[in-house]
């Protein structure tokens, strides 16, 4: 296991390098001069020259990259041009809100997806099974941001059960209950597509496992059906599910951008979009870097979990 961990950690290096190159490139693929784009059409020549020097844009690309990397490794992501504050603190503060949202969506999609998948497999062709097939078709076709708006219209505007946007109530809020009530609609919106994917995959692997000999043996021994499904079949069916859950975790972090915008959730996604519209490149780079790092870490965690569940992986 230690060897596996070491090898897996070594793989993180090249990926991080690639991530850093992409994030660095964000500033440099722009067809014009980034300094000009950031300052807008009214900027004077001196302003542009000053910003170019400030950002180090007058040096060769390789030097710029090395400088930038060096600063990033020391935790300096630069200053936001728009908020006039260090990027790192702002991004990390907002990232917490994104993690809260993505984690609760991951929890809902994983638990809900596995439960729905197991039930659909155990009662194949039942009404529930058909509904779940329909839901997965809808889940793949529905724009998540639209689902968010629909849920908001129904549950916040018409029924008035839940708050429509934000993370806490503007006055007198701040407790856990307040957070949870604000969390419900964004979580459901973000989790919906992943939930249906996890459910379909769990169903098909469960059906596969339920047809195997050891399950028949267990049934022949007279083991209760619920025990067969949960203890014998589910544990074996979980392995492919874990991989998909890992992939989905990444999508949830990325997809959170859209959901955050719908519900005005104060996460790193809304910050990034504001940064792009304000042409604040350091801020955008910081946001992309932090989300991508989160994605890499999640994938690492999933691989470790995968190896724990399935001893065969460790020996490969």
């Amino acid at each position, binding site marked *: 296991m230690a060897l596996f961990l070491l090898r897996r950690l070594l793989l993180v290096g090249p990926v991080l390098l690639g991530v850093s190159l992409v994030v660095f490139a*964000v500033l440099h693929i722009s067809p014009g001069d980034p300094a000009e784009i950031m300052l807008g059409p009214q900027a004077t020549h001196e302003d542009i020259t000053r910003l170019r020097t400030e950002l180090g844009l007058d040096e060769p690309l390789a030097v710029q990259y090395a400088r930038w990397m060096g600063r990033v490794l020391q935790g300096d992501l630069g200053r936001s041009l728009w908020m006039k504050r260090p990027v790192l603190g702002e991004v990390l503060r907002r990232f917490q809100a994104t993690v809260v949202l993505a984690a609760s969506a991951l929890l809902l999609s994983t638990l809900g997806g596995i439960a729905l998948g197991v039930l659909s497999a155990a009662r194949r062709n039942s009404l529930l099974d058909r509904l779940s097939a329909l839901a997965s078709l809808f889940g793949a076709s529905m724009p998540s941001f639209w689902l968010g708006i629909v849920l908001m219209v129904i549950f916040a505007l018409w029924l008035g059960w839940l708050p429509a946007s934000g993370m806490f109530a503007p006055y007198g809020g701040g407790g856990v209950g307040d957070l949870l009530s604000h969390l419900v609609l964004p979580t459901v919106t973000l989790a919906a597509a992943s939930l249906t994917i996890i459910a379909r995959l769990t169903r098909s692997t469960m059906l596969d496992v339920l047809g195997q000999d050891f399950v028949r043996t267990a049934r022949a021994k007279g083991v209760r059906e619920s025990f067969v499904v949960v203890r014998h079949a589910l544990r074996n069916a979980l392995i492919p599910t874990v991989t998909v859950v890992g992939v989905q975790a990444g999508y949830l972090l990325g997809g959170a951008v859209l959901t955050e915008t719908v519900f005005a959730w104060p996460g790193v996604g809304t910050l990034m979009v504001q940064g792009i519209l304000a042409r604040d490149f350091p801020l955008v780079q910081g946001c992309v870097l932090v989300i991508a790092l989160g994605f890499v870490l999640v994938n690492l965690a999933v691989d470790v979990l995968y190896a724990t569940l399935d001893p065969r992986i460790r020996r490969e």
Partner: protein
Amino acid sequence: MSDAAPAASGLAAPRAPVAIDGAARSRSVLRRYAGRNRLAVLGAGLLLAATLLAALAPWLPLADPDTVATARRLQPPLTPGHPLGTDEFGRDMLARLVWGARVSLLAGVATAAGSLLIGLVFGVLAGYRGGWAETILMRITDVMMAFPYILLAIAIVAGLGPGLRNAMVAIAIVGFPLYARLVRGLVLSLREREFVEAARALGGRDRRILVRHLLPHLISPVVVAFSLDVGAKILATAGLSFLGLGTQPPTADWGSMLATARQFVVLRPHVALLPGLAIFVVVLALNLVGDALRDLLDPRTRQS
């Protein structure tokens, strides 16, 4: 072993004699298939209708999609003269939806085609040439897949600047690894097959072998991937437009219509619900048709 068993599995079901000519046979397969898969037929019908509406928009008796009439803003559906109501500037919703279909459908097809083209070139090069070309191309693909793809698209748009064209470029770039991997895998296995070896032994050049012998085998899996991808690309383009990074006002596009409508959802939910419904229906239709195509073209999944 009983002789009457095969019908049960469906796998070994007796086939009609193959004496009929190819075209008639594929017609009969299609008909049988259509009878079994009504949903796919429904999807194809919806898709055809949407495409026709979009293509014929300039000739349809619609209001001008960009004419502002502030006196008649946010009218509900079924208002005389505005069957689907009006938006926050009093523009006709039906006209904007139909004109928006042009942008959304075209963006979906064009970005998927862009991804397909880049992926095909990468995949064929990596699979057929092997060596360092393969290592480099596949590492690029890996790094791109290490990002959540909407995030990468957003990052590229951040660099290029917001706008529909840039958003489409970003989505096309971000989408190519899917095709590169698929094509590389196929080419790797085809490369070793006897007919390729035979062509090579006969003195066929690489270019000829690629075009005449390998490409025809790639068509059906790539078509299936493409048909399922167009829907995903429409969703992605709409998503970027929704964030304000794609289509810019006043051009109608389903994603940007949703974005501006969000502020008026309290007053008139229809301005936000209709464009989303349009995206949903079209992408659903595309997925139904794509699934059916996969079943039809890939015999391995036909039974399931």
